């Protein structure tokens, strides 16, 4: 059980600013996602928490205690690495036992603990094999078991399930969520998959090249992004961001002062058949939803409609949006304060 706090932490590698003056707090027992494109600083945050890197400036606190002078072994944080980093010269069992053996836990306790974890992850039958003989999914589970076998203050996972295929990934992330709730532990989870972040996290931070752009619950970030960057990072299909002078196309009469750009999520864009400024250029039926691409005044907007609407490519449509569901941004891309 632990909260993790960063206070004005900056980390550079040579000329590259990996993390720029980051301050945030991950509360106890949270499933916290760090979300951003590659090299945005997500992994750097994990390494700083682990103590594998030291911050250039600023302080890191685990449970309120500064950890600047605590070695990685003593920080009581467990980690699943992005490339898993299993020990190739040991069996799966020895990999899982490793953290306990290194901490000189009595043998009886080790056995009990290992049995418990391996059962939870369904890897009891493969423990005798070396990592080389395991499938990708099995390796993943062994790596997760190696982290879960201890009783640390927090777990960190660096995009651990990215190698799995879509269905297995979905299953695994739900299972991770369940395990996290059962164990009542803080879990910091790095991902570049917005769906993954949105679906399991109860807190998340969106990063862009070393800077934290916004922190909050996934719902807050989705509903009230503070910038076009955050708005575009979350949600699929991606939010439509159009210039303010196109307000007429989507039937928005009154723009707030200073609104240079308007964001409309595809599911909030209403498509009215029977003539208008928009032309349907593409229809993608996805089963429960249909995604439309609509060309209007040189821009392409996406609309997500329920079911299979009776529309044809090339048809002219008019567009509208509930003003309460539109997002307004200034010229720099920052959200305008709107009375929501």
């Amino acid at each position, binding site marked *: 059980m632990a909260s993790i706090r960063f206070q004005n932490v900056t980390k550079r590698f040579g000329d590259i600013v990996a993390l720029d003056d980051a301050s945030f707090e991950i509360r106890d027992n949270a499933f916290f996602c760090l979300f951003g494109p590659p090299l945005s600083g997500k992994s750097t945050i994990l390494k700083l928490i682990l103590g594998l890197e030291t911050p250039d400036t600023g302080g890191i606190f685990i449970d309120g205690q500064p950890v600047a002078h605590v070695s*990685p*072994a003593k920080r009581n944080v*467990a980690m699943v690495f992005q490339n898993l980093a*299993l020990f*190739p*010269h040991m069996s799966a069992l020895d990999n899982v036992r490793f953290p306990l053996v290194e901490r000189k836990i009595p043998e009886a306790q080790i056995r009990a603990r290992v049995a418990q974890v391996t059962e939870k992850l369904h890897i009891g039958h493969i423990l005798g094999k070396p990592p080389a003989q395991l499938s990708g999914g099995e390796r993943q589970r062994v790596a997760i078991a*190696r982290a879960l076998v201890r009783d640390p203050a927090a777990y960190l996972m660096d995009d651990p399930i990215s190698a799995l295929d879509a269905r297995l990934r979905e299953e695994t992330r739900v299972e991770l969520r369940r395990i996290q709730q059962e164990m009542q532990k803080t879990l910091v989870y790095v991902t570049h998959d917005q769906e993954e972040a949105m679906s399991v996290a109860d807190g998340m931070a969106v990063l862009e090249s070393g800077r934290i752009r916004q922190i909050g619950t996934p719902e807050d970030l989705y509903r009230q992004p503070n910038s076009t960057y955050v708005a575009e990072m979350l949600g699929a299909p991606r939010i439509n961001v159009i210039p303010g002078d196109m307000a007429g196309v989507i039937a928005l009469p009154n723009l707030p002062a200073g609104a240079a750009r308007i964001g409309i999520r595809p599911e909030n864009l209403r498509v009215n058949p029977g003539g208008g400024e928009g032309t349907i250029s593409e229809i993608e039926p996805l089963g429960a939803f249909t995604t439309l691409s609509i060309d209007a005044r040189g821009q392409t907007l996406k609309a997500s409609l329920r079911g299979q609407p009776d529309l044809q490519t090339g048809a002219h449509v008019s567009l509208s949006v509930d003003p309460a569901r539109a997002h307004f941004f200034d010229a720099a891309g920052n959200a305008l304060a709107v009375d929501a």
Partner: protein
Amino acid sequence: MHRSLSFETFRYAAILTFLALSLIPTIWMMSMAFKPVAEWQAAGANLTWWPENPTLDNFRFIFGESGSDLIVALERTAGRPILASLLAATFGTLIAMVAGSAAAYGLSRFGSGGNLPLALIQLRIFPPMAVMIPVMIMWAFLGLIDTWWGLALIYGIVTMPFSFWLMKTFFDDMPREIEDAALVEGCSRWRVFTRITLPIMRPALASSGLFVFILNWSDYLIALLLTTRDWVTIPVYMASLSSSMTGQLYGAKAALGLIAAVPPVIMGIAIQKQLVRGLTFGALKE
């Protein structure tokens, strides 16, 4: 894959040609080692592929108990040079491997000694002769001439760059995260090295070690300059195997050559299993 017959024929012909080119000298040496004098003498002898009257005379001869009517008795037998070669090459390899791997690990992981590679390669930029003459003078001052330990020391120094370069690429290839994982899971730096890094690096150490050993084992120039009598090595001793009456003692040389081939071959076989497998096979997700 299906290939045409002419291509397959060509492929096998090419393989056999290269095999023959590399194996014929070795086979010739093996054959000669078991021939009596009359069969290996260059002048007037009837050269055959296989010994007509196989004998161990050549081996007896270099160990000083010649049963043959061979002209000369040897001043020195092969026993001491074999011991000298074994000691100098083994300890030289140990020095090179320990120092080279330690330097490689430090540079690969912590960037310590950033200009070290350049400094190391300088030893090899000059022609060996240019380097060896000053070394010879220094060794004379230090009283290391004609000792196996003096030879081992210089072997360690001149082959260290090789072990360094080889081990550095191996350490660079080993993902940091494996060590990071061990650090996070409770190991000290030293324990990570002994419990994780070294065992994973065993095949790399074995193959680099073999490479360095063969370099040291086959050295002629350094041993020629730094040993005179008591601790001459196999190559130097081999060069001295001649007599004023018969010229080069090819049979004796072949016998010694065969003996000299034994240690590297044994080592090669011993570590073969290690060589075929990748270092971090299975550690990572693919």
